[in-house]
């Protein structure tokens, strides 16, 4: 079956613009995670969804970042008024539920000029 997919694979935008990053989890996976990986670093947790609700958004760096998962499947990470420091690879992972193996997508590389 298909794995976790993320679109776009690369996104270049200008400072101050709004971007949306999409994650399609593995079918049937109720848990969905977003991580951000800056150059030369390990991924950092952003937000966790169980079903449609954000069960833990403690990793979101500020209120410019927001994520939704309206039907409990696809999730969108939204970044307003992008800054150069937002440049990173954004990774999405899904699992059958908390405590189960997380399967990662290939990530979206965001570059803010």
């Amino acid at each position, binding site marked *: 079956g298909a794995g976790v997919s993320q679109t776009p694979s690369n996104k270049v935008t200008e400072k101050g613009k709004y971007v949306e990053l999409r994650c399609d989890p593995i079918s049937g996976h109720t*848990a969905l*995670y977003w*991580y951000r990986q800056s150059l*030369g*670093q*390990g*991924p*950092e*947790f952003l937000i*966790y969804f*169980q079903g449609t609700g954000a*069960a*833990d958004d403690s*990793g979101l760096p500020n209120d410019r970042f927001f994520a939704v998962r309206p039907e409990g499947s696809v999730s969108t990470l939204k970044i307003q008024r992008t800054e150069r420091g937002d440049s990173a*690879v954004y*990774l999405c*992972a899904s*699992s059958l539920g*908390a*405590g*189960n*193996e*997380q399967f*990662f*997508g*290939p*990530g979206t*590389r965001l570059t803010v000029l």
Partner: protein
Amino acid sequence: AQTVTQSQPEMSVQEAETVTLSCTYDTSESDYYLFWYKQPPSRQMILVIRQEAYKQQNATENRFSVNFQKAAKSFSLKISDSQLGDAAMYFCAYSHGANSKLTFGKGITLSVRP
């Protein structure tokens, strides 16, 4: 807060030889999970091996095994019979609790010499 430390930024191993990647972590919890993930240039994180803290026996997956020292908070990965395809970034990670979010180390770049 939990932290994961990988102090070696790079390592190199000869093909067919054995290499050990180090990781230490800090937590006040008694029940948690530890992981090693591989990230090739394609960026896709792949789970290599997983260890439950309550299990004393070290996890093994084919050529990959861990040395889990709970008291020392140490979790190293041993790769036996190294292959060219093992070249990648390797991340040590920790999770605990109801949401199982992962806390990663900074990673180590492993190169394999033919």
